[in-house]
């Protein structure tokens, strides 16, 4: 569905995105585009949504270059960052114009508006002006405009920015529902927790470079320089004795009632740990991975490339 082949983007002398290569397959699902401010997320989204041509390399969406390509643009929906909308304008008038710009008209447009407003739960409030809407409601309307023409690819730039927790959860549920129904969703954020709650598939950008792509677990396994930390809770002395005999052990730290071990290949160690615990060989009460989450992966990657 999306192919970047050494695609880069320059803003004059400033490199917004270094030559980047990746592919996103056909079909539904959510991919998180993660990176701190200035990482190149918006640059990448500008390339994918056809707003700018790449300065180098190639970008293909649905097999074609998206820049000024109506056949590609008609198949994607964009929700840009920010929530500024003309304050005196009613949502339905705004949606009608956006729908017409997508090529809808007449009864088809009416049906599309009803469907999109129904999806975002705003069917009975679309007559309100934007000045009378909360931030969450405005974000839902922005999502509705992107859904009017039933895009196969939905691109959202920082969609959770400024939303309260309830509105955030509602929007996440909406996106998951859309993904389950077959829409490919690419959502950018600089907040790890948001992406971690939403999806396991990530593209990690840092300083204009794509550092990693894949699931959090896959990426974590590739970080050989940072052994996985596991907390083994139980009788600490006995657990430490068992751990030091394991060839994968890189480091060990004693805690009160637990031992924290760093291992290089947890996939090899864990079956043996499981077997030893099942046979009563070690007094293990609990096992907690400490740095298998997105937060740790992000920190390791950005630290390595800083």
């Amino acid at each position, binding site marked *: 569905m999306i192919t970047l082949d050494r695609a880069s983007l320059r803003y004059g002398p400033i490199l917004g995105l270094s030559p980047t290569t990746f592919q996103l397959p056909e079909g539904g699902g959510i991919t998180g585009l993660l990176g701190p401010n200035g990482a190149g997320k918006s640059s990448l989204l500008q390339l994918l949504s056809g707003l700018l041509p790449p300065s180098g390399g190639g970008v293909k969406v649905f097999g074609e270059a998206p820049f000024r390509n109506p056949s590609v643009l*008609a198949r994607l929906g964009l929700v840009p960052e920010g929530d500024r909308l003309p304050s005196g304008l009613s949502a339905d008038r705004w949606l009608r*114009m956006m729908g017409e710009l997508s090529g809808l008209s007449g009864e088809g447009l009416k049906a599309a508006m009803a469907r999109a407003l129904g999806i975002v739960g705003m069917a009975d409030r679309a007559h309100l002006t934007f000045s009378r809407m909360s931030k969450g409601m405005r974000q839902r309307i922005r999502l509705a405009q992107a859904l009017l023409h039933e895009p196969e690819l939905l691109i959202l730039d920082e969609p959770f920015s400024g939303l309260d927790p309830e509105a955030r959860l509602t929007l996440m549920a909406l996106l998951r529902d859309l*993904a389950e129904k077959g829409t490919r969703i690419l959502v950018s954020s600089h907040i790890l927790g948001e992406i971690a709650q939403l999806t396991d598939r990530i593209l990690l950008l840092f300083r204009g470079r794509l550092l990693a792509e894949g699931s959090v677990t896959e990426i974590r396994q590739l970080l050989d320089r940072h052994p996985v930390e596991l907390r083994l809770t139980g009788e600490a002395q006995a657990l430490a004795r068992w751990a030091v005999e394991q060839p994968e052990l890189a480091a060990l730290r004693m805690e009160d009632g637990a031992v924290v071990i760093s291992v290089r290949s947890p996939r090899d160690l864990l079956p043996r740990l499981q077997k030893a615990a099942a046979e009563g060989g070690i007094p293990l009460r609990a096992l907690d991975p400490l740095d298998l989450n997105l937060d740790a992966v992000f920190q390791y990657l950005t630290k390595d490339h800083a």
Partner: protein
Amino acid sequence: MPIYAPTLPPAPDLHQGHPPALVLMRFDFTRLWRQKIGRFFGFAFLMMLLWKVARIYVDHLLQTNQAFRPMQDFAKTVLTQGADFQADLLNPASYLLWFLVALVGGGLVARDTLYRVRPLMYAHPVAPKDYLLAKLGFASALPFTILLPFALLPWLMSLLLAGTSGPVWVTVPLRLLPAMAVSSVLMGSLAVGASSMAATPRAGIGWVLGLVLGTGTLATMIHGLTGIRAIDGLNPVMLAEAWPQLFVGVEHPMVAWLPAVLGTAFHIGIWTFVAARRTRPSEVVI
């Protein structure tokens, strides 16, 4: 792992609607229609139009009623006659029209800049030229639509009252409509170019008024210093008023043909260029 939907509903029927430029123009017209701004200007233009029509009737009375015959000579010295009268059908509305164009046109592009609407539009099958065409089309159609009754109603009134011998020439629409078109495009391109340089609608109004009055003052100063009348071709207000005079063949137009053509081409060219540059996709920020 991505989740694939077993079946997908049929995609909506796209490519059924109007061209994007037309959709955007209609949206701007609807927005203007709902604004209260139209009440004041509507009243002011209506009063002017009534005065024009009344003038035709007065002229008719002077010609046909014996009781008014002694006033004929006086009226001829006070009221414009001949080609000047034909051109004057449009001119008194000029300043008010410029003000309306500044007020409405100043926000046309600036409002989209403020609300960051262009990234959204360009992410639809809307090309930058569609956007520019819509804005220029709207900003030019607005003064043209307002001027239209000024050209047609007095003409129609004159025809009804006195036939081909009335005070308004029978061929006036053929002369005034092209003049209105040129003046309207001049006003529209200047408004859109100025608006594209502003970040808010209010700033856009300021830009339009600043450019109109600024270039006008500059041209007048240079004219005064050098004595070269052709410099008035840089004054957009004078240009807009000169076109009807040129088309009806006034003996001493405000600006001669060549400076008018060059000045109008300069303004339309430069402000359209500015607007095109400022509304490029690379100027929008997601």
